[in-house]
């Protein structure tokens, strides 16, 4: 992992994130976000997280963003433009302040992080990030969170049905 590909990909990721925020067209915004996710997936690959990288593509790009596009088009058919209410000026002001604060915070933090023990990559075993290790960590140390995730998904599925169902059976 060297500086050149890092900077190149960072430019891509940040540029497309900005495009998402500044774009007028929601579908184009969604596509920009897909590119951003792809760039982040490549970052994951570089960071030795190949399993997570592929899951990132499958879940975010393959499922979540497709769902977004699907809903955008559904609303498009109905001739609806997005937007519930006008954003007041004051909120944009708050946003600007928050953004500057966050960026300043990151600007202060990041150089400090250089002093961390892990400022340079640790030596890791060759199979770091392999499906086997992910599986072991997932099902041995974090089985509880895994089960909770299952319940979250169940509740979400049920909720989506409740919200989307036309009328009661």
């Amino acid at each position, binding site marked *: 992992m060297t500086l050149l590909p890092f900077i190149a990909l960072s430019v891509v990721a940040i540029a497309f994130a900005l495009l998402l925020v500044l774009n007028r067209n929601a579908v184009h915004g969604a596509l920009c976000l897909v590119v951003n996710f792809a760039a982040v997936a490549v970052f994951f690959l570089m960071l030795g997280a190949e399993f997570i990288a592929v899951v990132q593509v499958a879940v975010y790009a393959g499922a979540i963003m497709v769902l977004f596009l699907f809903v955008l088009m559904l609303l498009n058919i109905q001739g609806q433009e997005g937007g*519930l209410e006008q954003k007041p000026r004051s909120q944009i002001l708050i946003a600007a302040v928050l953004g500057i604060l966050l960026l300043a915070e990151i600007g*202060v933090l990041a150089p400090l*992080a250089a002093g*961390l023990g892990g400022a340079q990559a640790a*030596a890791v075993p060759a199979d770091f990030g392999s499906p086997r290790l992910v599986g072991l960590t997932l099902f*041995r140390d974090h089985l509880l*969170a895994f089960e*909770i995730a299952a319940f979250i998904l169940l509740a979400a599925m049920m*909720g989506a049905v*409740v919200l989307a169902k036309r009328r009661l059976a």
Partner: protein
Amino acid sequence: MRLKGLRMLFCSTLVGIASAAGHAAQAGSSDPGGAALVPSLMDLLLVSAPAAALCAAAMVVMMIGAFWPASGRRALPWIALAGIVATGWATLAAPRAYEGPVRLLALDSFTVIFSLLVLAATAIAVLLSVNYVNREEMARGEYYSLMMFSAAGALLMAAADDLILLFMGLELLSIPLYVLAGSARGREQSKEAALKYFLLGAFASSFLVFGAALVFASVGGTGYHQMALGLLLLGRGADALLAAGIAMVLIALAFKVALVPFHWWTPDVYQGAPTPVTAFMSIVAKAAGFAALVRIVSAGAHGDLPGWNALLWALAAATMVWGNLLALAQQNVKRLLAYSSIGHAGYLLLGVLTGTVNGFSALVFYLAAYGVTTLGAFGVAAFLAGKGDRIETLYDYRGAARRHPFVGALMAVFLFSLAGIPPFAGFFAKLYLFLAALEQGYVGLTVIAVLTSVLAVYYYLRVSVVMWMEEPREEPSEAPQFEPARLSAAALAALAFAVTLLGIFSSPVLRWSDRAAIAAVETGRGAAPGRTGIGEAQPSIPPVDIPEPGPVASVPSQE
């Protein structure tokens, strides 16, 4: 077709259980070396007993709602109640001082008492919902089971000893709540409330994720104990990362419990959501958020983090003043109660700010008192609302008590308690809290708290005055149409009784809340043995220079 589906699901459940059992048997037999490090299924089941029981009950309710013939669905709330009671039993039965390899959930008296509080609130919310759900023709099975899932999330949040578990608990609490907020059929307000709640809730939880990532980056773990060790040990640079991480976690929780300036969703959501759901979330979400805050504070955010106290001070002051001031101007009763709940969040933050056993104890007691009262107040609002939740402004409430003196009297009790008028629970709750704050020298803040409480008396009394003193509305067509809502009435009466009882005989509950507070502080202390000077054990592995990277290093708990 239905029966077939049921049978199929039953079979698949059996297969799942069988495979889990087989897996457990194999894990127990084949891996003797790692057995001590690896939590067994039994361990996991023990630490998560309450939440697991509640989720299982929620699934039963869901299945019955989906597959039983319509006539059987009347029984759903009762099945849900049975499940909640069973969960209470599981909570009490699970060993309190669990010493296994799982350090993700803390299983102490704090957890148990908070779980019981949440479960009681859920049970009452279910009772208050029965009439409402039938009247508005909502999807019954889904409604109750979502409410139970949400409560399970609250249990997990209160027990979580790890930021990731906190995140998962928060989501299990929130996702069903978003749906419940939007579950009133055909009411646009309800859908908009759901959207607002959802967007801001998701926004807040992304802060939690980023905060957890910052904490992980700086100490190599997300456990509270790792956080605490990191605060003790790390150098300046890493401290700043850690502090930023904790601050972001605080922001996320501040959204959940509606602290100013992260409160703007509250009035709209409280107003738009179905009233029993509002009652549920006003106490359960708040209790879970404050429980998590107490855990984080007692694990060391307090005192070791520069600027932390000042930040909480400012948040508390702003919340108390702003919430109570805006409540003065409200005409809609649900909005008024929403702003008042913001004000109460400010008082509760006082307890967190103290960081002492007394403060936490007062906070637990306050939550119990506030929970009983707010459930009652929103319960009355749901009782009076009429079909489609149309009757909810002060104008509509004129003379309501004359027409229904019983309900009017109950509402008066709840409002007096909320206002902090003796001898009701609210008064003593405020008293203990303010005393604990004074004890720690927060004089200025206590003065603000007392002044805003006085302010609050005005708008609470105004509701009661409107209900009792003014002429009833003329148009009989729009007057509250009462169905035989005996169940709600009984639940409300029980709540009013509890409010009074908590005020007059507070000592048993106080003893419990003391125990909870002591447990929370001790769990927090156990997280960072170095701080108290009692624990000799120096942290064996400073997280940043882990000698042997790899999967073993990530087992969170080998101390």
